[in-house]
């Protein structure tokens, strides 16, 4: 990639052409956005897995409280139902934990690994910036000497300053070139990197929900006064509740 440093006398004293700068900004900008996205995703994943675990824990609490209730002792039917429910809830918890582990392994950790590259990138960009500043500084010194009248000592100094300038300029150019080449590569690597994670996340959810659906479907088949739909149960509840309200001891006016 070649670019021309502007010489003195040009209206804009820009040693790095705008197009180059713009390209750089664009590529770096994309990567910065990616960095933010990965950070946010990591946080959200943590929140999500925590919420999932909280949910299954509270579900288990429902059934274990029911199970520990002395109501079960006398009532065989009740005991059967509650035991079956408890088993189901515990299985739900186990599957959930498994899902979270899977997500941890295939999504969260890769995310972390990918994110750990960003500090290096930011450091490299900073160093390029430093090199640019050095380059600008020396360039202006050279130009200052070039403006002076050409006496002997001035020429000598000019030569020396030019010598100083050269390695710095080369350094900057090298850094710039390197980053401009490598940033897009880094950016595009995310596709290959994250697509497997994405698929894994989807798969984990699919497996979980399929299993859960199976568990609860089996449970309903096992427990039920067969054939009762939810509406029938709702109505039965209503009648029972009215019956209760009619009781004198309840004293509902």
């Amino acid at each position, binding site marked *: 990639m070649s670019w021309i440093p502007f010489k003195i006398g040009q209206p804009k004293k820009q040693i790095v052409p705008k197009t180059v700068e713009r390209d750089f900004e664009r590529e770096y900008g994309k990567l910065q956005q990616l960095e933010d996205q990965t950070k946010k995703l990591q946080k959200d994943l943590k929140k999500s897995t925590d919420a999932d675990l909280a949910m299954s824990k509270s579900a288990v609490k429902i059934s274990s*409280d029911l199970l520990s209730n002395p109501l079960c002792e006398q009532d065989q039917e009740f005991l059967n139902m509650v035991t079956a429910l408890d088993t189901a809830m515990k299985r739900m918890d186990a599957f959930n934990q498994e899902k979270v582990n899977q997500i941890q392994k295939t999504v969260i950790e890769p995310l972390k690994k990918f994110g750990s*590259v960003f500090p*290096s990138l930011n450091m490299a960009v900073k160093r390029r910036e430093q090199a640019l500043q050095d380059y600008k500084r020396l360039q202006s010194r050279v130009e200052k000497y070039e403006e002076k009248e050409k006496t002997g000592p001035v020429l000598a100094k000019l030569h020396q300053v030019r010598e100083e300038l050269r390695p710095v300029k080369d350094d900057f150019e090298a850094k710039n070139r390197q980053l401009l080449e490598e940033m897009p590569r880094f950016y595009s690597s995310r596709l290959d990197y994250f697509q*497997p994670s994405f*698929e894994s996340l989807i798969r984990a959810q699919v497996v979980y929900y399929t299993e859960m659906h199976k568990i609860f479907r089996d449970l309903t088949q096992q427990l039920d006064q067969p054939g009762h739909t*939810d509406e029938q149960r709702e109505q039965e509840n209503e009648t*029972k509740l009215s019956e209760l309200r009619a009781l004198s001891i309840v004293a509902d006016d």
Partner: protein
Amino acid sequence: VFHFLSRDIEVSDTEDAEVTSFSGSFYSKPNLLDMGSLLIKPVQRVMKYPLLLCELRNATPPSHPDYRELEDALAAVKDINVNINELKRRKDLVLKYKKNDEDESLKDKFSKLNIHSISKKSKRVTNHLKILTRGESQVKDSTFNREEKLFRHLEKTVRNCVKNISFCLQHIQDAMPLAAQTVTELHVISYDKDAKGSDYSASLSKATNPCEDFVAHLHRLVLTPLSALQSLFPGPQKLIQKRFDKLLDYNGYLQRAVGDDSDLARKDYEALNAQLVEELQVFNQAGRQVLLNCLCCFITLLRDLMLMGLKPYSTGMPLSLLPTSISEAQNRVIEEVHSLNFVKDNSATFIERKLSFEKKKPVPILAEMPRQMENHRSQLLASYSLEALYQAKRRCNATQEHDIDLLEGELVAVIEQKDPLGSASRWLVDTGIAKGYVYSSFLKPYNPAKVQQTDGEHRFSNGADTDSLQDGDEQIFYAVHAFQARSEHELSLQEYQRVHILRFCDLSGNKEWWLAEAQGQKGYVPANYLGKMTYA
């Protein structure tokens, strides 16, 4: 019901036009006066039947074929009346106690306090204590006790269920949208905007819907009935308490002579007890059924929720990769990324202790330098006096301009005990190969006697990193951050200044302050300002 109705009617009589017009139609009928008299007709009639039948029976000779039936009819009709009275009495009882406890302000409570109530309460307490302590004979009703226990358990179960199910619902409402959100976010990262599957996020955003349906149904089918059931418990609970009070009263009278008071107590107790026994059974049955129904509904709702939860994730994304191959694929990519130059150059090569304001300063890769040979050492020994000769305690890497590297055990001759800037911690030394600066803390005076046997080993282990600390006693640290001494016990440090730690705690054993030495001065420095140097 009748009483309320008639009361209400009387009240609304003047207001309600319909009622008045209806009453107006009475005027043609001679027997009716107003709504009240109309309503009281059934009551009067019910009470007339026994009388009627009684008269009829008395007029019938026992040999008449209808006599039997008349007897039965009379008994049945009397039963009806008794039942009505019983029901009425129970309702009255309940109302009396219900009104007692509801809406009572402190003032009301105080106004009820009189000699009678106080003595009643204290008698009860005494009786209770008597029962507890002396185990006196008391009236027991095992049926009641059983039902009451059931009732109590039912209440606790319902209460817990409502609480736990509500919590679980809350968590479900939190978790499911979050999961969908993470999937969307990951999708954004993983795919280019215009690639295939980019419309995935649109379909995923409908994923919150199964949750909403679930919530609505759960409330309607499970939580509302259970909450309603829960609210029905306090009424009977109060009555149970009252019954217990009556029981205490009754017990108190058991010992004494039978009289009016004890009779009354017995009647009260028995009425309440009978009522409770009968109705608690119904309550428990019905309550249990409601609970079971709600649990069944809960389970079916969960089943449906899981089905709905599955839907958004199974929209046509081909899942090609096996889990095991995921990490392989990803590792490959990460390897490639790590091979990029900007990563290589800038990853942390300078490992430090975890500090919040540490800066990662990369150490430039050392070029291979010629190592000190025997002839160099002898040259040094020859050219310099023994006092000027020092030995490197450990490997030092050159970090600044004009620094030189030393390997552990290398011999140097000190030319100047300060550097161009005047710092006494950096010395100009001659290694026989080159001259340069090293930090004085890396050097110890050369003792030829000690060196003999260890020298050989050190020479041969030149290639390897000897980063192990020498028995842990002498350790070089550097100040990550400048530190200003606030007293004469503390030592001021410049940034990146190297110090030699003499002790890893202060005089009182506090591990936060270390005794350090630098430039010939000793003092305490905060431990977390210091970073240990290990070389990668």
